[in-house]
């Protein structure tokens, strides 16, 4: 009798060029090494999208993989990864989003969807249990994401069917385009320009529903782990602010530590008071929402009641506020409306905000004049310009056509020294808070495998460990010092990266498992309980070490992919601004720049801990062997990347 497992057991492949639809069984050895979610996506990308394939070529794949635990009742197991070769970085790219789509794919009977080729005319894919169809989407092309979702649900006569779609931005191959779940106010696979790849295939949307069971191997173990999880979050001080304010809560931290990244990453202080989390909560909040299966409830919709944008209801997450600050905006209604615009048009708020801020600095420094900005007064803080330019980017109109390429390419087009303030890593716009003053944070933005990204690593572990724990786990008490510590930080970074990757493999939300107020709770949720849930659902018998090793394995697959594309140590760097220009706060202190020496020391310790070549930053044969990635060794040797 086949063992009960929460895997659906099949991979669905669709070729839009020749309309070939192919179903294959999930290979158990593949599953045991890569588990699911980001694990599947990264390996399939490596095996199929080689350096000769460009992001907008037909041969590029879009790989949609719900995390291994998606479709089960595991708390906060709701995230789906979409992997592709990124039009922004021309290397590994992925985005993660929570929503019902991933679970619907599994209920339809598939653990993974691979889309290849290019349709002649706009199409959408329907997955309805065993029935898979490629359907005409000409009537949807050009429509906003919420309208697309609504029309699909009407056409398919099912208000509960799950959809993912692109907006006008993805259709026009805007490199900042995102893929939206269930309209405009649920999950977003935002980063790396994944929406543009979907647009390049003339694929407007994918609708999925299913009636099949997802089985559970051990109900007792599952219930026990569930109870343990609830008990842990009941006492973790991290959780109540999340439930009370949603992601707006991060404002207080940014203010106190002066790391806004305001005005294109130059100012650490900013007139933030109008954007106080209390303002969002009392004046605009509709109610607290949850992602599927989540008890933390940190999703928020906000409604503008009066004024120019009255009636707008938009999902808003923290980074939208942060990137608005990067553009000098501090009006909450403008921020809500900006989120709405990006969601409707299918744009990544991080990339869009970062790129507009870049354009604003160009204007400030006279590199762009009014004749270049189509008459817009592109000053920091100018609401009209901010919103108008967002629309222009989605429409590829005027200056928007240049900015739609992302700030890195835009700076190459504009020239005149603007490259200096295109704030990106490997082509991906910078996210989260300013790295100056926090040495390991700076390195973490540089080492992420998908362009600048704080979520790849969450090196915030340093914030919650005691010096004793730091010594035990990372070899030095210094690793617990956020500002001055250097020794042990490299090891801390590797640990954090592998740890967080587990969440992306299993489809678990980082806020629910990978953030905490204490190291004990953090490990308990993110490693111990995650492993227990995985074993209970799938019938596997993975140890915590093996689970951790899986995270390490997948990170190395992505690193090998980027290496194959030509990346090495020179690409593991953050913009010069952070090394040279002191962060401007109310007062300037010695932590106002990233110290080059500290950066290099941490980076080298990190490479060493990873088992990579310290000079080139490239994975070695030994580590790839240890992680059972033989096929990757052979491939890299063949291409001259490995001895």
């Amino acid at each position, binding site marked *: 009798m086949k063992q009960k497992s929460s895997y659906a057991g099949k991979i669905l492949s669709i070729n839009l060029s020749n309309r070939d639809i192919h179903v294959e069984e999930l290979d158990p050895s593949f599953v045991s090494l890569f588990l699911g979610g980001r694990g599947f996506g990264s390996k399939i990308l490596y095996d199929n999208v080689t350096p000769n394939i460009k992001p907008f070529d037909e041969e590029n794949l879009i790989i949609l993989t719900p995390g291994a635990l998606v479709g089960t009742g595991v708390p906060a197991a709701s995230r789906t990864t979409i992997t592709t070769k990124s039009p922004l970085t021309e290397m590994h790219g992925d985005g993660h989003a929570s929503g019902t789509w991933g679970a619907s794919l599994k209920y339809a009977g598939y653990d993974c969807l691979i889309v290849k080729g290019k349709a002649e005319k706009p199409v959408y894919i329907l997955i309805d249990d065993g029935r898979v169809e490629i359907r005409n989407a000409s009537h949807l092309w050009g429509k906003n994401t919420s309208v697309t979702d609504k029309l699909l649900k009407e056409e398919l006569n099912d208000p509960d069917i799950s959809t993912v779609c692109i907006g006008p931005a993805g259709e026009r191959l805007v490199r900042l385009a995102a893929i939206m779940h269930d309209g405009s106010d649920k999950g977003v696979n935002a980063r790396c320009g994944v929406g543009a790849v979907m647009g390049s295939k003339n694929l407007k949307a994918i609708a999925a529903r299913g009636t099949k069971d997802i089985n559970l191997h051990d109900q007792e173990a599952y219930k026990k782990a569930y109870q343990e999880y609830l008990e842990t979050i009941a006492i973790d001080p991290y959780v*109540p*602010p999340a439930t009370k304010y949603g992601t707006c809560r*991060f404002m207080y931290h940014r203010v106190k530590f002066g790391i806004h990244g305001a005005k294109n990453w130059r100012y650490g202080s900013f007139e933030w008071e109008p954007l106080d989390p209390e303002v969002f909560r009392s004046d605009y909040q509709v109610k607290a929402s949850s992602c599927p299966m989540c008890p933390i409830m940190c999703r928020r919709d906000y409604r503008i009641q009066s004024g120019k944008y009255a009636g707008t209801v938009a999902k808003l997450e923290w980074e939208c506020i942060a990137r608005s600050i990067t553009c000098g905006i501090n009006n909450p209604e403008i921020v809500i409306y900006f989120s709405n615009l990006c969601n409707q048009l299918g744009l990544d708020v991080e990339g869009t905000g970062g790129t507009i801020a870049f354009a604003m600095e160009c204007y400030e420094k006279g590199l762009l004049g009014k004749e270049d900005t189509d008459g817009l007064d592109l000053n920091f803080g100018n609401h009209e310009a901010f919103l108008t330019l967002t629309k222009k980017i989605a429409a590829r109109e005027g200056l928007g056509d240049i900015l739609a390429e992302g700030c890195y390419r835009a700076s190459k087009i504009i020239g005149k020294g603007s490259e200096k303030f295109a704030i990106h890593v490997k082509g991906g716009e910078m996210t*989260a808070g300013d790295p100056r003053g926090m040495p390991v944070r700076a390195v973490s933005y540089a080492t992420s495998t998908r362009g600048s990204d704080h979520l790849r690593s969450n090196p915030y572990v340093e914030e919650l460990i005691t010096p004793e724990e730091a010594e035990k786990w990372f070899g030095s008490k210094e690793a617990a010092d956020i500002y001055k510590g250097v020794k042990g930080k490299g090891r801390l970074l590797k640990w954090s990266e592998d740890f967080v990757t587990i969440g992306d493999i299993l489809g678990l939300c980082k806020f629910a498992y990978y953030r905490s107020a204490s190291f004990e709770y953090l490990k308990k949720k993110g490693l111990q309980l995650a492993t227990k849930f995985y074993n209970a659902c799938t019938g596997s018998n993975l140890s915590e070490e093996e689970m951790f090793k899986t995270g390490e394995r997948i990170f190395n697959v992505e690193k090998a992919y980027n290496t194959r594309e030509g990346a090495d140590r020179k690409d593991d760097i953050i913009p010069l601004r952070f090394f040279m220009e002191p962060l401007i706060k109310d007062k300037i202190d010695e932590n106002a720049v990233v110290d080059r020496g500290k950066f290099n020391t941490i980076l080298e310790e990190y490479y060493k801990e990873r088992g990579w070549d310290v000079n080139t930053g490239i994975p070695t044969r030994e580590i790839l062997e240890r992680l059972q990635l033989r096929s990757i060794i052979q491939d890299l040797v063949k291409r001259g990347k490995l001895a």
Partner: protein
Amino acid sequence: MPKKELKVIVRLYPPLNDIAGQDFLSLFIDPGATIGDLLSNLVSRFGEKFKKCLYEKSEKIMPAWCIFINEKIIAIKDPNSLQEHLSDGDKISIILNLAGG
């Protein structure tokens, strides 16, 4: 002659403010009082739940907490840091080190 008491203002951030029921409080403390004394004062004022939130089960304050005195951060992981003396008019903030993104 009795020494003049010091007045300090404490700002509590979530979830401490929800447990305490207030965001701000002014306190009068003895001259020579340290940060450690202030914390003991707050714990005795707001009870077990407040204490658990700050200390969990240990005697040391959880490292995720940040204490600022007038915008200067206290090295909470250094046990001697709690011996820092307070002055009249000091503004103290207690915030969870919730880096986000």
